[in-house]
């Protein structure tokens, strides 16, 4: 982002904060207000907004997402699409932290795992130690616990910055893995919890591929649009400012630590939702689901897609899940890690901005000159 753009964005954020002390100032404050070509027509505001922003690819993607379960096999719907949406949501929480906050936290899967374990421990499962609370108590509790843990992790790791974050969050994540592995009284050790199923609500079995897909789709879209909205609020703009120059933001009167911890909390909510969906998707949770392998896989997904735009996380997840599902037909199942490690290495080595970066490169070479990513900066993800 150029200096001039910055100043404009910062001033917008500051002015918005000063003029409207209400916590929820509308996103339009920070967003650059474009000339409204439909100002004279009397359509409702949201319709005009849609008309301005929608383009063919949006309609196409929406149609694809909505129609997919009706045309694809249940296997594709459940194993590929729903799984990709869930991992996309968890990776989105990481790419929000990393791309907009500059903090690469490997503990996002741990937060998701905490939510999953909370669902399994508090709700009902095949294990006797589960408390068996009703789902409408369990779910808020699980989310609150996950968010609190995420905040704590954030509070711990923002005390140090940059490269240290990755180490500390990795250490926290692995420590959680060993905790659930060794603890039998609460977490049931190595076996974990089996038969953790979504509840029957409104007479629909949410475990069936189609309802589950739409549930995952709903939350993934909610997370995606929430992040898209959030990064244009004064909070989001300030967070990006802190990513680029914490010292300057500090002297401008922004609390660097508070913003960072808040970002962790927000990411924790997303990861928590993802974790609840994940435990329902798998139907079980074991220490293996929160081990280093999957912690790193979430990072792989985020990096694969690109961290400069929220869509990257979902893009990466689709590619990752497709590779995971179909690569074993081509190569030995055992060698999947080699493939994914190799792909990850290649992406980091040759296209640091992931698939989004590749796309942007292709566009700038062949297409009209446009900026694809929402936050073009010099920084690496």
């Amino acid at each position, binding site marked *: 982002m150029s200096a001039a753009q910055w100043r404009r964005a910062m001033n917008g954020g500051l002015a918005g904060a000063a003029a409207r002390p209400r916590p929820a100032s509308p996103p339009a404050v920070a967003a650059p207000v474009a000339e409204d070509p439909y100002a004279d027509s009397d359509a409702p505001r949201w319709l005009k907004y849609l008309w301005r922003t929608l383009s063919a690819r949006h309609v196409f993607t929406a149609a694809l997402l909505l129609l997919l379960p009706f045309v694809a096999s249940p296997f594709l719907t459940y194993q590929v699409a729903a799984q990709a949406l869930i991992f996309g949501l968890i990776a989105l929480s990481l790419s929000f932290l990393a791309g907009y906050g500059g903090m*690469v936290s490997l503990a996002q899967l741990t937060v998701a795992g905490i939510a999953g374990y909370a669902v399994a421990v508090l709700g009902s499962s095949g294990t006797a130690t589960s408390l068996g609370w009703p789902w409408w108590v369990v779910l808020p509790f699980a989310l609150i616990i996950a968010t609190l843990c995420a905040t704590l992790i954030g509070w*711990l790791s923002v*005390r*140090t910055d*940059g*490269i*240290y974050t*990755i*180490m*500390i969050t*990795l*250490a*926290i994540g*692995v*420590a959680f893995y*060993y*905790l659930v592995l*060794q*603890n*039998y*009284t609460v977490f049931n050790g190595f076996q974990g919890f089996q038969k953790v199923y979504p509840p029957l609500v409104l007479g629909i079995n949410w475990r069936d591929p189609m309802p589950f897909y739409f549930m995952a789709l709903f939350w993934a879209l909610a997370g995606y649009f929430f992040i898209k909205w959030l990064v244009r609020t004064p909070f989001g703009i300030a967070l990006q400012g802190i990513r680029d120059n914490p010292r300057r933001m500090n002297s401008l009167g922004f609390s660097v630590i508070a913003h960072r911890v808040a970002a962790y909390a927000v990411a924790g909510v997303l990861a928590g939702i993802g974790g609840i969906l994940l435990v329902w998707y798998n139907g079980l949770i074991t220490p293996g689901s929160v*081990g*280093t392998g999957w912690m*790193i896989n979430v*990072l792989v997904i985020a*990096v694969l897609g690109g961290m400069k735009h929220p869509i990257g996380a979902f893009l990466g997840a689709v590619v990752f899940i497709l590779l995971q599902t179909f690569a074993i037909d081509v190569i030995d199942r*055992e*060698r999947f*890690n*080699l493939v*994914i*490690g*190799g792909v*990850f*290495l290649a992406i*980091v*080595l040759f296209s*640091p901005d992931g698939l989004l970066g590749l796309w942007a490169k292709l566009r700038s070479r062949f297409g009209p000159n446009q900026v694809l990513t929402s936050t073009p900066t010099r920084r*690496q*993800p």
Partner: protein
Amino acid sequence: MSKGQRLATWLLVGGPIAVFSVWALVDNPRLYLVTLLNSLTLASLYFIVASGFTLVFGLMRNVNLAHGSLYLLGGYVGYVVARETGWWIIALAAGFLAAAVAGLLIQVLILRRMQGEDLRQTMVTIGLSIVIADFLLWIFTGQVYQMEAPEWLQGPIRGIPLIKAYSAYRLSLLGFGIAIGLFLWWLLNRTRVGTMIRAGVDDRAMLAAAGVNVNLVFAVTFMLGAGLAGFGGVIGAVELSMVPGEDTRLLLASLIVVIVGGMGSVVGAAIGAAILGLAETYGLAYAPTYSVVFTFVILIGVLAFRPRGIMGKAA
């Protein structure tokens, strides 16, 4: 920190430990002392592995998350060499060399291309750790390998007061740890390369400006750090055992050691390793299900009060 504060810290941290020690000594002196020896020997293994990690980090600001994989690589190579030649000492050297060469290749071929991009380097090492771990799994499968100690270190040493008997090999670990520590001290404080490394830790740009070939210093340090991981791998292969997953365990140990001890400081690595070894082993001996929690509490405590670790300096 004022004198009073320091005293308060010592009382707050040392008090409960002292009370516990007195109780444990009265309750079962043998268990207490054996656990003490166990923890110190484990700590020296951690120190050997983590000192390489901290050396690399201190100089290059590069978190080498493939360190655990290099540890495992050294262990496997050492195992094969020991099986073929029957000489444990040669296995030690081979483990060190294999990991050092792997480290050199990583540094020269990959990391050098992205000098100064800390985060990208770290991600590359994550990718490498996945690939190396999978290669090792491919070649050696998931089988558990246990290396035999050399004959002169097999069997227990008897006749120690109170403890009665203790494994000679475990005791030798303590010796290895101290020897490596002394070697590193000598290398860093008494040689020309060490001077350069220390200067690089303090100010890389200035070192380069002074006409030193920084790339060479980086390569040597990375080699040494990776080699120490491999060396630890051979030692650990006898004591622990080699199986996929050990790489993560040692990586976690190294991470905690350097976070607690302070990154880039060899003394800090020694302190951190001692703390981690003590916490883990005493935790396992006296409260088995919660040993990880102790480690975690220590990590939180140190981070909360000394975010840069005990011996860490501000970056």
